């Protein structure tokens, strides 16, 4: 006889499915899109074998396989929703077997899923961790169907196997196994305690074999601390990053305007978009500027892995391919599994641009083994291939060496090779401005800007006035710079207002808050 399911039993599932899908599809898609970019799943037997040297190899392998479908927002939302639903069904079945009423089991199962849902708000929480839990649940459910003697003794071979296949899934399995055994009043307590000790000590015993620290041995496949927090600021930055990946610079600026984030990564993408749309000289201070850190993301042992992954974008767009390659390789190393489809694509692009075809072939060969990127080189949109032609013309031809964080020299090298590299010139001028280095700005402007033969952008005009004012330049010299009369008048007004304000920023904020003058006087570097 089939039993009727009541709404109370299934309402939690309906809430879980709709809530999870809608959330990850509409409100939080960019974390999942980024996770896909940070994996590189290759359809090859050799790739499969790279997993088996560490615990949780099965869930890591399946996790990465499924993560490749995060390539579209619906993919991530569907897979996560499916995983949560599966976990709900398994938890519910377990709770029912433990003797709970069906409707109560349904709601408790939902409560148990909520932390897992929240964990997926972290950029570093992998799908494999959820799969480890699912496998543990599946295993314990299979055990509950066994007769008592098997239930007791099969634990011993199952526990190591489960650890090898699922990593931390072993602990959920052990806990649920003990609870069920306790409820069923199976065996003696000292035996259960012994098995608990075996389960807890197994990762410690095996960690030398896998060469893991104690913490790693207990948390694999997790590689970062747990966080049950949805990071909507990061979601916005990732939205800007995603638009930048698509070359959709107007959307980056639209998002920058919409979000108004006071964050160096948001400033980094905003400035990149300003440079690509040739609006940097006019709009630089229309957005939050944290200082020179908003132009380049430093790559050092202290940098976050996210900053290292993003750091190649600016070098690539400026044409500094050696630094772009350096940053992209570092980004690859610092991605969670040291392989990333996004950075593989970037490295392929870099080597295609530098006509280093053996190296490009290596990366294209890897992409050829993926499901979604195998045709990527042939499907590059026309505007991107055109951008590549333009980029190729920016690659330095003047030999020099520089430290990785010596941005001034890097930009000067680009300009020495190609004085018409307008984004590089904007970056160099703005780097000096954001450093409040007026002589550096003036030197750069006088050396390179006349070659650009454009009207003086508003921000540069403001900085020029500061420089000319400081040197007490004559009106004749000021005229040579072709600074708009309105800017000169406004500068005079600002000077008066500044003196009147007596060093206070508040009276000037509304009228002059988006000028270089205000930045120069009042903004501290972050």
């Amino acid at each position, binding site marked *: 006889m089939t039993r009727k399911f009541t709404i109370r039993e299934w309402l939690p599932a309906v809430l879980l499915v709709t809530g999870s899908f809608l959330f990850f599809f509409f409100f939080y898609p960019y974390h999942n899109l980024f996770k896909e970019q940070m994996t590189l799943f290759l359809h090859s037997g050799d790739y499969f074998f790279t997993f088996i040297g560490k615990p949780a190899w099965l869930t890591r392998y399946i996790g990465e396989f499924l993560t490749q479908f995060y390539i579209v927002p619906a993919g991530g939302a569907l897979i996560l929703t499916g995983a949560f639903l599966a976990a709900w069904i398994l938890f519910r079945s377990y709770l029912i077997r433990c003797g709970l009423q069906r409707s109560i089991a349904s709601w408790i199962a939902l409560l148990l899923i909520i932390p897992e849902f929240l964990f997926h708000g972290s950029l570093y929480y992998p799908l494999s961790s959820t799969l480890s839990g699912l496998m543990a649940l599946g295993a314990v459910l299979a055990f509950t169907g066994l007769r008592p003697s098997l239930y007791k003794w099969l634990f011993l071979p199952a526990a190591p196997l489960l650890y090898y296949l699922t990593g931390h899934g072993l602990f959920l399995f052990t806990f649920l196994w003990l609870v069920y055994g306790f409820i069923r009043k199976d065996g003696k307590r000292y035996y259960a305690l012994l098995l608990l000790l075996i389960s807890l000590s197994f990762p410690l015993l095996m960690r030398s074999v896998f060469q893991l*620290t104690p913490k790693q041995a207990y948390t694999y496949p997790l590689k970062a601390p747990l966080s049950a927090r949805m990071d909507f600021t990061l979601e916005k930055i990732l939205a800007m990053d995603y638009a930048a990946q698509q070359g959709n610079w107007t959307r980056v600026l639209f998002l920058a305007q919409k979000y108004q984030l006071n964050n160096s990564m948001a400033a980094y993408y905003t400035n990149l978009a300003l440079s690509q749309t040739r609006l940097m000289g006019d709009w630089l201070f229309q957005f939050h500027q944290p200082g020179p850190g908003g132009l380049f993301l430093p790559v050092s*042992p202290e940098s976050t892995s996210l900053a290292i992954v993003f750091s190649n974008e600016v070098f690539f767009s400026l044409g500094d391919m*050696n630094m772009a390659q350096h940053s992209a390789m570092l980004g690859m190393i610092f991605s969670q599994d040291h*392989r990333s489809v996004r950075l593989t694509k970037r490295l392929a692009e870099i080597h295609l641009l530098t006509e280093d075809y053996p190296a490009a072939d290596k990366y294209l060969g890897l992409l050829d083994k993926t499901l979604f990127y195998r045709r990527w080189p042939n499907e590059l949109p026309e505007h991107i291939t055109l951008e590549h032609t333009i980029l190729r013309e920016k*690659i*330095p031809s003047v030999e020099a060496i520089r430290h990785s964080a010596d941005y001034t020299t890097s930009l000067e090298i680009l300009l020495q090779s190609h004085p018409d590299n307008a984004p590089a010139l904007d970056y160099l001028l703005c780097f000096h401005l954001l450093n409040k280095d007026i002589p550096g700005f003036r030197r750069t402007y006088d050396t390179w800007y006349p070659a650009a033969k454009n009207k003086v952008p508003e921000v540069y005009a403001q900085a020029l006035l500061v420089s000319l004012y400081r040197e007490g330049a004559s009106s004749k010299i000021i005229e040579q710079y072709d600074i708009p009369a309105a800017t000169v008048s406004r500068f005079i007004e600002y000077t008066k207002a500044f003196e009147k304000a007596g060093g206070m920023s508040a009276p000037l904020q509304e009228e002059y808050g988006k000028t270089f003058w205000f930045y120069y006087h009042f903004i501290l570097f972050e």
Partner: protein
Amino acid sequence: MALFALMLTGSCQEKTSTPKILEEKPSLFPDYCGVTIPPNIAPLHFQLDHPAERVRAQVKDRQGNTLTTTAKEVIGFKSAPWKKMLLENMDDSLFVTLQAKYKDSGWVEYAPFTLYISAVPVDNYLVYRLIAPGYEVFSKMGIYQRNLTSFKETPILENTLVPGNCMNCHSFPSNSPEDMSLHIRGALGGTIIKKGYQTEMINTKADGIEGNCVYPYWHPSGEYIVYSVNQTVQVFHAIQDKRVEVVDLASDVVVYHPGRKEIITSPLLQTEDFETFPSFSPDGKTLYFSSSKFQKIPENYQEVRYNLCSISFDPESGTFGNRVDTLIDAASMGKSISFAKPSPNGEYIMFTLSDYGNFSIWHKEADLWMYNLKEKTMYPLTEANSPDVESYHSWSSESTWFVFSSRRMDGLYTRPFIASIDKNGNSTKPFLLPVRNPLRFYSFSFFSYNVPEFVTDKVTWNVGKVEKLLTSPKRQKVTLSN
């Protein structure tokens, strides 16, 4: 029944017409045509550069014994018959005939190529660091050992045990796995010295020495380790043909005595000039090193050119001679010498020659050269070199085989190649370290093979104890000898 048998026969046997005989040899990956191999090497697996529908290989010796195999893509051999074939044909050639079926042209047979089997076995293990070429910050890496008689690779130490720390500069005395020196950089930095079953962690930065000991080389007696002490800086090139340089701001050479925990040096090795890449002669009485005139860095980085120098060393007293000899004045040739490695039989010194500096691993022009100690002549190892980088190298214990890092495959990732030295002191054609599926394996790997070193047997140590040493703050301090 007969029909079933017919079907079975039809499905198992390849229907082959007489293949078209070609005069050309096959184009393979890896290029194993005409290579000399040791008799104890793992089976050489390879594939055609141009994919075929089916490939058949026959390895034949002069006695008519054969090994045959068929594959869709990768030609491979079973270990036991391969080993037997090699052992039965030492100091002789094997002839490999390849037939391939192409979609357009049907079956073709390439001209046979030879594999020459040396009578000298190579050391059984190769130790290397696997690291992504990521420059100044480090993530995942490890020191691994590969059994050269099979395909088995095992980790010696991975930095998952000590996250965020860099490990490198592993070194063994006279290719023996009993003793080892391994330097760790980072928060848990120090030098691990393994002497038999004893392992200790030392801080090699003695008072009066500017920096930690970096590049090691063991004295053949195992009583000393010579190190360079380098203060380095990393800089990047602007143009696309060059990438990165690591240049010394200062560098000296010191000798460490593990028994006495003592650093020995000489004013002749602690000059204003740059001294680096030291090594001992096989009799332990001479210390070789690279030396360059001091240059202002980074302005004059292209003027840093290292000569090959030597100084005598008395192992009994632990003292140096009072004169430095220049064996090769590379600077006057506009060249620079790094990684001078004497052959264990004392006949040769192999070194890397590049245009300037000591970071030859990113110099496309860097090649392997040989110095004949008896005749005092130098010459390139032409057969081993390629248009791309050849850099780090080391000898097998019997002075016949050597391994070296090369970027010849893609210009980015270093791969280990093995070759032998013939009786005239020239290199035979090198072969890429054999793996089961070479093209896939090397193409999919994001790791470079760094500092390949032969050892005669498997390195064994207690990883748990090593981890304890690493994570404990205790470091044995060394002192500077008076």
